[in-house]
Every structure is written in structure tokens, then in C-alpha cells.
């Protein structure tokens, strides 16, 4: 129903270049999340799509129809784009009841009265807030207001639903509930969704695709799993994942066939087919790399497991937190974090055996900061190394 293509979008606020040549295709039915720290241009991109912001350069197509053509100063009106937006602040009209809020847009579309009634009630039921129809927004809790805002956006059955950090004003528990709600909504309506957030958990749990923003540019577009496993550069790797990924400085040599890495946590060889060969990899000379190691991929044993990738480490500190435990380890003067499921506790300075999985490590060229070695997306414990 709705395929959105952004081509070479440039947006300036005065001299401030906030969107730099943005190119992005959102397929019909996608749940596309624009992810990034604040001020990286993700909300601006959403507002460009919605029509509330006019870019100075570039094109926007929806289902092949030109919506924006900056070169011709053509900008389709927001209300004619067949989309709706849920604001971060909800932007509920405080002088209208829940029903009136949801009905407003339908009235403007000159829908018949009984039709409005049934459409509004359907939207309210979908969001499970039908009983609040005659309340004013300030008589509702934050979570209920959020539901009204979404009901208002879906009442007009938009082809495209835009959500701007909709969960950031909710408390932690409500946020988990609303995530489930939104995921269901996406499945049930099949509407294309563009979702803006700075919260990687929201992005990873709900999206079908994630566009990672960095300083007005898109650095990576990928599925959540792909993005988590193989962040395209050091910044992306650092941003995605909680607890943070471990970075370990190392030296490497590439002879055209194998990348040989020497690091404080061991020496590893990576075959050519696991490398990202379109990136800059110096040949036949030693260069600096950074190894990326996810904390959950570090296995800790108190007795030698006789695994070929075992190293001996010392426990620096351990932080049991119920469902998971974080353990800081030291090897050859290098600190790194391991995450164990469940309640585990180690003594300070205890000697432990650590098994690492080279196939699931990332390697980055330190100079360019770019990924040069892929990690395997699917991992079978015990079978793979």
C-alpha cells in the first residue's frame, strides 16, 4: 500500500546542516525505526516525511507519486499525504474530549455523523480506551493519553503511521506494555510505520528494519539482528547493546587470504570469506584494529572446560542483579565485561577460565573505524567455535 522513497534529502536550519543527503527506502508494511542519539536528525527526517518540515534539497516519493520535489519547490500538503503522526508530547487538544479529539480529523474530512461515531469507537476499542470517550485529556493518565494519541492517528486509517518517540514520556512498565501494543497494532493493521526513538531496546524489539542515524546522516540500514550483530562502525557498535560492547585494541596483518589478529585476549585467524572486503584493509603490513566482543558471548568457567579458545582471567568485580550478572574480568592488564544469565557470584581476584567465540567477534579497522570482519548472525553453542 505504501512504499516511501527518500532521495538525497538535504535540510538546513540557517547554516546548520541537519540532514545530509538522506537516502532511504521504506517498503510497504515495514516497521522502520529511525534510531540515534538526540540531535542526529531522526525527528527532522520524520517531520520531513510528515510535511511539517520542508527540506531544501531532495525528493520524496510515496508509491511512486512525488510528494516532495525541492528543486521545483513542490511540497504536498501534510493532510494530502495519507499519513498521520503521533507526537512525543501526544499533542492532545486539551479543550476537547477523547471522542472529540479522535473525531476532529474525520469531521474535517466531512464524514457522516454515524460513520464518525463508529470509526472513532473502533479506534478507541483497538486501543482499549472506549470507556474514556467523554473524558478530557487532563483527566487521563500518561498511558491513557498515549493511547488516545495513537487512536487519533489510526482513526483515519492512514497508509503510513509516523511515531515520534511515543514512549519516552511513559514509565518503564507502561513502556513494555505499549511496545507489545504497538507491535500488535502493526501486525493487525499492516500499516507501514516509521518510528523514531533513541532507545535501542524499542528499536530492536519492535522494528522490521532500523535506520541508524549519526550526525544528520544514515550510517546503517539493517534488520535488528543484523544491526546488533554487525554494527557498521565503532560508533554504531558502541551505541547498540546494553551493557556496552567490549572494545579491545589489537594488531593485525592481512596477507590477502587470512586476517591474523594478535590481541591481549589471544591470537585469532579469520578467513577471507568472513571479511568485509569492500572496506579498507591494509595488505601485508601490520595495522591497528579494534576487536568488538559482546559481553553475553563471554563464557566463564571455574574449571578448565578444555575448549580450544580458553584463556585464563582474573575477576576484577562481579555485580549480580537477579536475572543477570555482570562480571568485570582482567586479562593481561585489559579489562572487559562479561554477562552471565542468572545469579552468579565470583570472589574478587578469583582465577577463572574464559571461553571466547571468534566467529562471533567483530573486528574494526582502528584508523577508519569501520567494520572489517563480520560476526556470525546465528550461533549454535557447542557446535561453533
Amino acid at each position, binding site marked *: 500500500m505504501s512504499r516511501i522513497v527518500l532521495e538525497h534529502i538535504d535540510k538546513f536550519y540557517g547554516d546548520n546542516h541537519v540532514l545530509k543527503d538522506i537516502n532511504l527506502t521504506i517498503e510497504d508494511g515495514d516497521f522502520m525505526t529511525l534510531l540515534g542519539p538526540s540531535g542526529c536528525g531522526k525527528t527532522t527526517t520524520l517531520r520531513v516525511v510528515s510535511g511539517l518540515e520542508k527540506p531544501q534539497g531532495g525528493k520524496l516519493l510515496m508509491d511512486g507519486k512525488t510528494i516532495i520535489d525541492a528543486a521545483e519547490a513542490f511540497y504536498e500538503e501534510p493532510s494530502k499525504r495519507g499519513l498521520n*503522526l503521533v507526537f512525543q508530547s501526544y499533542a492532545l487538544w486539551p479543550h476537547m474530549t477523547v471522542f472529540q479529539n479522535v473525531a*476532529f*480529523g474525520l469531521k474535517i474530512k466531512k464524514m457522516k455523523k454515524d460513520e464518525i461515531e463508529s470509526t472513532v469507537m473502533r479506534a478507541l476499542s483497538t486501543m482499549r480506551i472506549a470507556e474514556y470517550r467523554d473524558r478530557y485529556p487532563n483527566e487521563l493518565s500518561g498511558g491513557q493519553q498515549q493511547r488516545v494519541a495513537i487512536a487519533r492517528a489510526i482513526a483515519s486509517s492512514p497508509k503510513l503511521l509516523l511515531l515520534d518517540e511515543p514512549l519516552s514520556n511513559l514509565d518503564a512498565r507502561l513502556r513494555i506494555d505499549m511496545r507489545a501494543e504497538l507491535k500488535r497494532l502493526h501486525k493487525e493493521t499492516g500499516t507501514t510505520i516509521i518510528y523514531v526513538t533513541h532507545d535501542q531496546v524499542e528499536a530492536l524489539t519492535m522494528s522490521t528494519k532500523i535506520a541508524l542515524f549519526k550526525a544528520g546522516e544514515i550510517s546503517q540500514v539493517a534488520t535488528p539482528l543484523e544491526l546488533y550483530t554487525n554494527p557498521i562502525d565503532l560508533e554504531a557498535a558502541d551505541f547498540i547493546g546494553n551493557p556496552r560492547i567490549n572494545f579491545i585494541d589489537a594488531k593485525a596483518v592481512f596477507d590477502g587470504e587470512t586476517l591474523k589478529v594478535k590481541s591481549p585476549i589471544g591470537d585469532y585467524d579469520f578467513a577471507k570469506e568472513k571479511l568485509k572486503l569492500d572496506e579498507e584493509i591494509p595488505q601485508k603490513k601490520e595495522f591497528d584494529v579494534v576487536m568488538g566482543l559482546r559481553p553475553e558471548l563471554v563464557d566463564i568457567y571455574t574449571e578448565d572446560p578444555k575448549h580450544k579458545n580458553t584463556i585464563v582471567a582474573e575477576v576484577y568485580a562481579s555485580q549480580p542483579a537477579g536475572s543477570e550478572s555482570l562480571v568485570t574480568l582482567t586479562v593481561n592488564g585489559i579489562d572487559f565485561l562479561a554477562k552471565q544469565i542468572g545469579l552468579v557470584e565470583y570472589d574478587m581476584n578469583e582465577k577463572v577460565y574464559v571461553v571466547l567465540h571468534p566467529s562471533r567477534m567483530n573486528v574494526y579497522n582502528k584508523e577508519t573505524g569501520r567494520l572489517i570482519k563480520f560476526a556470525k548472525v546465528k550461533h549454535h553453542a557447542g557446535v561453533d567455535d
Partner: protein
Amino acid sequence: MAVSSVKELKKNRKFSWKRVKNQIMGILGNPFNVIVFFTLIILFVLIIIPLLIMIQNTFIVAKAELRSIPGASIGDYTLYYWKYLLASPLTQTVFWEPLLHSLTIGFFVTLISVPLGSIMAWLMVRTDIPGKGVLSAMILIPYMIPSWCKALSWLSIFRNELSGSYGLLTGMGIPIPDWLAYGPFAIVIVMVMHYYAFSYIMVSGSLRSINSELEEMGEIQGATKFRILKSITLPLVLPAFLSATIMTISKSIGTYGVAANLGNRISYYVLATRMKEFINDAPKGVGYAMSILMILLASGTIFANQKLIGTRKSYATIGGKGTRSNLIPLGKAKVPMMILLIVFLFFSMFMPLFVLIMESFQIVPGKGYGLSNLSLYAWFGTLDNAPNPAFAQNGLFRNSEFARACWNTIKLSILGSLITAICGQFFGYVTTRGRGKWYGKLTEQMIFIPYLMPGVAFSAIYFAMFSRPRLGGIIPSLYGTFTLILLCSIVKHFPFASRSGSSNMMQISVELEEAADLAGASFWKRIGRIVIPLAKGGFVSGFLLSFISIAKELDLIALLMTPANYTLSFLSFDYSKEAMPQVADAICIVIILFILVCNKLAKKIGGDVSKSMG
């Protein structure tokens, strides 16, 4: 195709008619742009052009001076007026003396009123002085009474034979010298009694916003009460204190009503009163030149204020728990302090008012309150049965001038404040929605200009602009018309109205409009269905506050008055020059009642007196 600026982007483009068409449609098709356009035009025509014309008038020969400037014809370029003012044998009398007087008054008013108001603020906010409710009312209510009414009260007590009738003290046989009754001393005292409230409002606001935890932290560190006051509290209120100081200087230098009432009788002139004489007589150009100097003086102090305070103003003193605040115990001094304050306020504010009210019932002022000296003449009498042959007018309710002035005042206040409030909302809309854009800034700056000018100087601008036909007769001469007074009152209140408008609009988040935009509502529909319903409350309180302010205005309209347009304020001012002050007093009382009633109303709807500073 990586570009780094909009310019580069545009350079790469070929010319296209379609683009031009889309751009024009984009600008014209958006009613917001049309509103911005008209806002800028209106402000330019009503503020910038009159100002420029007045400046121009100080350099151009007018008809009245044809004989004084040999060989000149009307419209010639001349430095005559500026020379007359700044470099002629008369300079001493027409310029240096009034300037010195204005500065002296400004200095002493500030010296007394700022510490007075600040100490009151500290007592009221930070100490456990009892009876705060009564005290706060006693401090704030007098501020609503126009300053020139206070001058009349002063006269009702201290008047001596120079005025033709006695005041309370002279009547009791206490000889009152001229220097006490009139002139700088009297002017300073009366202005202090008005402007102390200014410092009180600003400093108490700032004190209230200080989290008492800041002071408690000092206490934990072992500082004494005095040390805390000196090192923590005072530095935090310093910005408010400095602002109050400078605003008081600027206001007291520009005040006309008080200086005219108490100074003119003994030929003690300040800039404002001298200027009015020049503009009402001749050479007008000299009056205009003086008004420019007054504007520079006033705006200079205000800019100094912003320069001085600007960076320091924004202490984020409001913390989450800032409302809870521990009061400083005054101990044994508690009750004496309260009594002292009440006695002071009573004698400085309420007794004069009482004397003023009583005087309106006296047959001969200063002859005591015996039944034989009391009459309702000032209210209901007619000249043919006047108990005192010195009466020059019928009593208020038999007086056609009073009826007309009432009607004029009501007309002026209602129309003026209605238009001001509507414009204010629109300006507020343009400035908040245009925040950070060139037109938003330009609108804000233009609206700010009338704020920089003392009322008399501002009306001089309108006098210069509209005292003769403009644009070849398309705009007729407005001198002597109600329209001119209305226009002047409206524009002078723009800064205040647009401030209330923009704080009102600030509360209506842009996203509420954007949501309606996405739902397909047109601009006017958004204004009608979203903005206006939400702005209603703020509009009404903004309306009532400018209503009060316009109703009591004297300084602003004094210059433009002709008998047919007299308002209550000006009628009272006019009558007060006569030998018998009772009728003037009675008008004053009517105005005070009117203001108190309106204020009560405004408060009910959610307005705040402290917002109508001025």
C-alpha cells in the same frame, strides 16, 4: 552530490518557472505569511514612521518659527531647534535646569524607594512577620492608584495659600513653606510612595524563587544569619534589585503627572513638563528635540539594565522543592516590626487618601470636618446654589463635563484595551511561532520600542505625526480627535499586550496545531478551533489589565488632549489647577473606585496586578 550549504544547493539548480510558481503559491497560500506581513506593516507604520517623522521635525522649519529664522521658508532644513535647546542663551533654563531637576528627582526617588521596597519584600517573604495577608494588601493596593492621584492627596494635606485654598495642615494653623508643599521634595516623596511597589514586586518575586535549601546549606556550613544574607541571599536577588533600580530611574525621569501637579505652581520644571510646554506652544521642534533626549535617556537606562543584568539574570533558582521555604524568625521584633510597617503604610498611603476623600466633602478646604463645613456639593451641587462662591464647576453628577469625560474614559478603555488585547494575541502568535526566524525577531524588536519611551515622549511622537494631514490628505489631521488618543493608547500598550499574548501562545504548543494540520484543518480552522478556544482565558485577563492601565493613564494622553476628549484623569488634572480642589478630588475618588473594582474582577479571572507594572 554532497552539498554543504543552501547556497551551494541553489547554485546547482537550473532556473525553472515551475519552481517560481510553486514558491509564490507556497508563500501566498499560507495565511500565516499574510498575517506576518500585515503585522510588520502595522508596526512599521505605527511605530517606526512616527518616530522618524518626529526626528525629522526637529530639523525642519515649521510655520511658527518663520519669523525667528531669517530667510528660511517652511520645510527648509535647519539646526535652529537643536541650537535653541542645546546652544543658546536659553539653554540653561530650557535644558540644563529641567535635566538637572529630572536627574535629581530620579536619583532621590531611586535612592529611597528601592531600599524601601526591597526591605518590605524581604520582611514579607523571608521572615515570620505576622499579618502578612493584611500587609501585602496594604502594600499593593496603593500601587493601583495612579501616581497623580497621590499628588492630589499630597496637596490636600500640604497645600498652602499659594494655591488659593488651604490644605489640612495649613488649615490647622501650621504654616507650610512652599518648598515642602511643592517642588522637588514633594515630587520625590510622592513618587517614592508610588514606585516603592515596583521594587517590592520585583524583589519579592526573586526572593520567592530562591530555594531555602540554598540558605540551609550555608547554615550547615556554619555561616551566621548575617553571613547567609550577605553571601547567599543578596547575590541571588541582586539581578532583581538592579533591574528595579534602573526601571525606577527610567520611570521617575519620565513621569509627567506628578511633576506637573506639584512643580508647575512654583515654576519648577522637569524635562517632561518643559517638553509639554514647548509642544503645546512653540517652538514645537524644541519640544520634539527634548522628547528625543528623553527617549535616549530612558532607553539608555533600560539597555544598561539589560547589559548589566542580561547574563546574570537567569539564575535557575527554581528547584523542584523550592516552594518549601523556612522563614527567618524575627523573635521579639516580630510584633513591633509589623506595627511599624502598618503605621508607616497607614500614614503614607491611607491617611492621605482619607484626607483626599474628606476634602471632597468640605465646603472650604482646610477648614476642618465640622458639620457646617461639610457638603455634598462636589458630588451633587450646582453652581447657582454653591455654598462657596469659589467653586468653578457643578458637582460631579450635575456636571456635563464629567458625564462626557466618563463616557470618553469608558469608550477609550474598552475600545483601547479590546484592540490592544486582540493585537497582543496576534503579535504573541507571530513572535512565538516565528521564534528564531527573522520576522519573529523583527516583530519583537519593533513592539519593544514604545516600552523604551516615557508616556509623554511617546505621545509627542504621535503629535508630530498626526497634527497635520499626511500622505497628501489620505490620513487627515487627527489632532483633537478621539481616534488619535485611542491610537496612541493602543500602541503604547503594545509591548505589554504582546508580552501577555506571547506567554499565552507559548502555552499552546505548536504540536497542537501541527496535529490539526495533519488532520487536514486549514489555517483559519486551526486558529478558530484550536488556538482561540485555548487562548480565551489569557485573552480576558490581558484585556482587563490593559483596561485598568488605559483607564488611569494621564501622562500618555496629556499632550493630545482637547476639551471634547477629556478623560476622567485629565479632567481631574485640569480641575486641580483651580482654587477649589473638591471636584477634582471627587473625580479622583471615582477613578480609584473604578480601578479597585476592575482589579478585583481581573483577579477573579486570573490576572495579576504585578503584571501591569507601569
